[in-house]
């Protein structure tokens, strides 16, 4: 079940990312949904899931981007492992620590990704801090929203359903 959830989450994030990257290409707002899904999975299920999800998502992203396959995989594997370990060591169930975790993961991911490309691919280190900051904020917002939806969504739906039920009884 967990494996299916992981694979599904990565697949959905990839599909959404490739779908959204068309309209947002060249724009100031950028988001890395695969990274968001990865951090979410690592915080939820732990380091092992983070490692495997990072490797899976990163390699798939690399393969689809026609770059050097493995750089994104290594980066996301490290991120998944680190986030999973930190999530097991600290209490990251509230919103603010999760926000911080998403922001930090985005920054670390971008620095490592650019650094590895500079080292291995031979291209200059071209990290744009402002764009990375925006991406980190967007990622964190998306991630925290996803957490809230998953954690509070069923409860809210149940409340809403209960509220609808009581209204019907009053009405009839």
């Amino acid at each position, binding site marked *: 079940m967990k494996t299916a959830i992981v694979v599904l989450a990565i697949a959905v994030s990839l599909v959404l990312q490739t779908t959204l990257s068309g309209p947002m290409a060249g724009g100031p707002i950028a988001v890395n949904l695969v990274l968001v899904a990865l951090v979410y999975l690592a915080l939820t299920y*732990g*380091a*092992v899931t983070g*490692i*495997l999800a990072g*490797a899976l998502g990163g*390699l798939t992203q690399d393969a689809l981007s026609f770059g*050097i*396959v*493995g*750089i994104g*995989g*290594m980066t996301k*594997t*490290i991120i998944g*492992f680190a986030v*999973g*370990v930190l999530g097991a060591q600290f209490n990251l169930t509230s919103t603010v620590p999760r926000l911080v975790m998403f922001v930090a993961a985005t920054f670390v991911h971008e620095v490592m990704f650019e650094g590895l490309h500079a080292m*291995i*691919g031979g291209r200059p280190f071209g990290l744009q801090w402002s764009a990375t900051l925006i991406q980190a904020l967007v990622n964190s917002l998306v991630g925290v929203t996803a957490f809230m939806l998953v954690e509070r969504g069923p409860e809210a739906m149940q409340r809403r359903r209960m509220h609808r039920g009581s209204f019907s009884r009053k009405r009839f």
Partner: protein
Amino acid sequence: MGGAGCANNPDTRLARRTSRVELMLDIRKRTGYLFLAVMVAQVLLVSAQVQTKSGVKVLQAVTFELFSRVQFATASVVNGGRNAWGNYVALRGMRAENEGLKRRVADLEVKLQQEHALAVHSQQLQALLELKSQATVPTLAAVVIAGNPDPVMRTVTIDRGSADGVLADMAVIAPGGIVGRVIGPVARHAARVQLIIDRNAAAGALSERTRAGGMVVGAEANPPLRMELVSNLADVKAGDSIVASGIDGIYPKGYLIGRVEITDRGSGLYRTITVRPGVDFSSLEEVLVVMVPSTGARAEDPK
């Protein structure tokens, strides 16, 4: 009792072992190893795609480098083992071989010394032969077989005696010059020779350069010869050759006795002259006996 029996039950042990193996294989308990494995796999994947500056794939280059290190280490171990084994095997026979070689070296040293002695001996014989061929007098080769136990008496014993025609007062010479004279009694196969350096020995002598005459006598000094009865007026210098004058009737005329080393004007009428012998008496081995009786012996001979 029941608990111990249950612990020793094969099924229980098998179950424990199985759970232990499952625990070992459960990657969820081995996050670090999993992380490491995934990272290494991806590093290899990246290396397979990236090329070095020389155009070789990084994976190939790293693999070759690592493999070459392994090969180097393996070769070092194998060579070390082979060398150690070879040295050990070689050492096993080394002691016996060493002993054999030592014996052989000793034998060869002895042989070398024998060869050297033979060579020297042959040189001496050759010199003696040349002297004999040059000598105008008949000679008989003899070998020094003994010295004198009394260091004051400078005599040697030769292996020729009366059976060979050796008589008393016969001169004995060597390639270096005059050695001495035979003194009696002469044995049948041996004779005693008084060396010219003996303090009781004397010989008529003259300077070969100026023909200044005198008498050479033995002396307990260094050099062991002294030339006496040479006038202060005579011209004798260091380095002059002193030869037998033949006036004593024993030593053949013209044979070298020695060379002047020091010459001084004495307090009286005669010079003080020291002479270095021409013969090395410390290594006297072969000599020639001049087979001419002395003048005195010939006079006494009734024939």
